[in-house]
């Protein structure tokens, strides 16, 4: 413990904090907002991979059963629209941080460190939606393959796909909830 503390002191953290202190708290939170909005969009990777995967599997399925192209495309689009919700969550979070970050006005009453960390945390939290996008896209692709192979069971396949995608969405929703909590109902500020 002692060693770690000594190691940390070589960075002269106090100097760094003093350097930060010369800025207005509002400016620091605004700077953090810019960074957090960018970080939030990292979650766009997930739906990108997922929707691409779905498109690939659907193309394969359409190639095998060209007559079922219409059904395959429909299922692919429906599944991709579900997978896009992860991107929408990150977009919502990024836009909220940019345009409606309530933490920028709290600089007089709360330490700037808490505000900056909460803003950054909201942006980082939504990265959790990445997995949701990949998973839902995979499900969409498999659904499209299923419809191509057994078009008779189209309604059953779509129903199961949508149900499974809804459950896969859970963790993305949790990430969104934590991000919104940090911005609008922060327990450290009250």
């Amino acid at each position, binding site marked *: 413990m002692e060693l770690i503390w000594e190691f940390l002191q070589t960075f002269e953290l106090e100097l760094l904090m003093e350097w930060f202190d010369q800025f207005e708290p509002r400016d620091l939170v605004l700077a953090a907002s810019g960074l957090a909005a960018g970080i939030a969009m990292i979650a766009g990777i997930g739906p990108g991979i997922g929707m691409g995967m779905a498109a690939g599997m659907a193309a394969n399925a359409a190639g095998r059963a060209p007559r079922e192209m219409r059904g395959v495309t429909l299922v692919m689009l429906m599944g991709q629209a579900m997978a896009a919700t992860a991107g929408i969550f990150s977009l*919502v979070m990024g836009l909220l941080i940019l345009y409606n970050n309530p933490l920028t006005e709290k600089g007089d009453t709360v330490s700037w460190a808490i505000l900056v960390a909460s803003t950054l945390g909201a942006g980082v939290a939504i990265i959790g939606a990445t997995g949701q996008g990949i998973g839902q896209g995979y499900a969409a692709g498999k659904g499209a393959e299923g419809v191509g192979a057994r078009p008779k069971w189209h309604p059953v396949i779509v129903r199961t796909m949508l*149900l499974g995608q809804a459950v896969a969405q859970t963790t993305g929703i949790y990430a969104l909830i934590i991000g919104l909590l940090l911005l609008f109902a922060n327990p450290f500020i009250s």
Partner: protein
Amino acid sequence: MEGIGIDTISLPLVDYEVTNTIFNIWIIMAFLVVMAVVVRVKLTRVPGKLQLVAEMVVEGSQWLVDNTMGEDKRGFAPYTMTLALFLVFANLSGLVALRQPTADLNVTFALALITFFLVHYHGLKAKGGLGYLKSYFEPLAFMFPINVVSEIALPVSLSFRLFGNMLGSVIIMALLYSFAPVIIPLIGHAYFDIFAGLIQTFIFVMLTLTFITLKME
């Protein structure tokens, strides 16, 4: 930004305040009750247009229950239809500039609690007390805490799913209206209100039916 938060409305005549989401629920309830009464009063052997739509809704919910739960559980069709109709109108109420009641955690959690109690009531009824208790120790006895946690997670994830999706569309639509108030919001309404609203209605209803069936088996 306007339209994101939940505001309070003070009622006339009585000295009482309600949130605007509760008020919108009352509007939807009144609409559904009036429609039900109108269809019931005009019931004829040769159906008119309104009756045709009502019959389609009833048959659709029966078909859904038959296909997901089995024909012996058709008794769930009335609740399925009530839930689906309420959720459809609640999710689509953003189209007529009402704030979606389903973008309020209190509303979605209440609905998820109804599902939670239905699941456990019918589980107890179908399996009996001992069989119901035994289901918590399956497949292995030490799985008991995991089973309990997953039961508690059910209403939480169910309510947050609907809430998160609808809140996302409320926020996006408010942002769209502040950026570009003409024409462009129409595209947003098509995806965020109609597509997402209908899909989330379907998912909430289907998950409710599936969870009840799973617990009864």
